[in-house]
């Protein structure tokens, strides 16, 4: 029955790996089951890491929406001198509109402003009975274009003021960037702290998965040696371990997404009560997008760390 085979040294690796895929998956599941404590630890740390990353991404998203909204509402009011002629006023409007940083300019006449004020005050209209002259100046309401970098908007506003403050027909320029700066600073700080925590957690997750896989590899080192001696390629040996790490990442991501779903959906009212200005909202679509990201993260952590763990042990 034994026939002499020709020496073959060709590369069949890819085809072999495809044919063996069922075996690889079976092996990795049996490794997972045998691994018990380390497997549970690895899945848990991945789940915790991904859960926190998920929370961070949710807050980050809403903070971003909030600051964009805030920025688009920032206006700079130019109070003009009452004696300004229509022509001069139009000149100022034109020059403002020609500036790169300006989005729109709205003229509010003293009459309109007065009416608005009356409307705003509502019931207390009678105080206007004591005023025989409209005290409000003509106003230009300038809206600036949105900026991406923090502090850039304020810079734009300052250069605008610098440019117009010497104009003899402008009484005063008024703006409110204080709140914006504070929001930007707080969100930046939160982002930095969260990023640092997440980096630490991701590193811990990497280490724990790395060790979990290493323990499986060491426990099976005899088997690996035999595999190598009977002609297994390195990839044949690697695949089950890599799939094992991948599955740990997948399960970790799955558990964290389940918890995150309930926290996101039902906890949102509580969040809005504590931080009402964020106006957080839950949509299935945004949750699914988030889940895709988190699953990818889990699978990347699991796969890369197990690849690194097995790499060290393949040199026989």
């Amino acid at each position, binding site marked *: 029955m034994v026939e002499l085979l020709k020496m073959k040294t060709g590369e069949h690796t890819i085809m072999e790996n495809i044919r*063996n895929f069922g075996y690889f998956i079976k092996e990795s599941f049996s490794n997972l089951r045998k691994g018990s404590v380390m497997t549970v630890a690895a899945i848990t740390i991945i789940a915790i890491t991904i859960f926190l990353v998920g929370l961070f991404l949710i807050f980050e998203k809403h903070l971003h929406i909030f600051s964009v909204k805030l920025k688009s509402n920032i206006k700079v009011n130019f109070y003009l001198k009452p004696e300004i002629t229509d022509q001069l006023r139009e000149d100022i409007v034109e020059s403002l509109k020609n500036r790169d940083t300006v989005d729109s300019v709205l003229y509010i006449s003293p009459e309109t402003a007065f009416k608005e004020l009356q409307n705003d005050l509502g019931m207390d209209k009678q105080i206007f009975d004591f005023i025989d002259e409209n005290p409000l100046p003509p106003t230009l309401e300038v809206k600036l274009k949105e900026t991406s970098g923090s502090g850039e908007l304020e810079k734009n506003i300052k250069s605008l003021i610098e440019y117009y403050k010497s104009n003899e027909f402008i009484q005063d320029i008024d703006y409110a960037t204080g709140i914006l700066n504070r929001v930007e600073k707080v969100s930046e700080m939160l982002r930095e702290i969260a990023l640092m925590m997440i980096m630490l957690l991701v590193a811990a997750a990497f280490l724990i998965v790395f060790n979990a896989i290493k323990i499986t590899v060491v426990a099976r080192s005899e088997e690996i040696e035999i595999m190598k001696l009977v002609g297994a390629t390195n990839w044949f040996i690697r695949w089950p371990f890599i799939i094992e790490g991948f599955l740990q990442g997948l399960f970790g991501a799955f558990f964290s997404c389940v918890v995150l779903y309930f926290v996101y959906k039902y906890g949102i009212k509580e969040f809005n009560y504590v931080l009402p200005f964020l106006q957080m909202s839950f949509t299935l679509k945004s949750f699914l997008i988030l889940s895709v990201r988190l699953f990818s993260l889990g699978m990347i952590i699991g796969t890369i760390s197990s690849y690194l763990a097995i790499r060290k042990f393949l040199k026989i």
Partner: protein
Amino acid sequence: MIEMHHVTKIYSNGVKALDNINIEIKKSEFVFLVGPTGAGKTTFLRMILREDSPNEGQVIIDGRNIEKLHASKIPYLRRNIGVVFQDFKLLKTSSVFDNVAFALRVMGFSGSIIKKQVLRALDLVGLAHKKNMFPLELSGGEQQRVCIARSLVNNPAILLTDEPTGNLDPDISWEIMKVLMEINNHGTTVLVATHDKNIVNRLRKRVIALVDGRITKDENRGTYDYGEH
């Protein structure tokens, strides 16, 4: 099939396991490798399997200098070489069938081919009826035969055996030798490292003696002795 030119192997602890070995073994030859313990027999076999590389010289298998093989090609070399290990190297948690199937599985054969080949190999070593047992439920001789079945299941061009009859009683040893000769009759080059004087003397095959890493004798239809020192 197997050539060694000026092969010298010195281990990191300073032991000179092989000292300027020159040898040629032809296709379909049956060769006994004899010598006292520590003479370098196992190292000799390890060189052929490229488990280890010589410090000097070349090992040529089927016209190919295997030192120049890229690491990723080594598995493909090994698929042409069956090995029967001194310590069997069986997987204790796998059945006899799975232990033999293992060698085909790493090559990516499909299930039906694996089944057919494994049963044929087990039949050849007379263990087909024990295919579902585990190695620890078998005697030493039976474990040895599982190891042999694994080594020949993929019809290798070369079969290396390290003390295949060590610790076995004479009857079983003889059975195992008959299996090895059967394989050799079908064209496989067989190398047997052994201490078994009776078998070597009875079979009268080519005998290569190694003493202190040097070839002291190379004789066709030889007997068991280490030649002149």
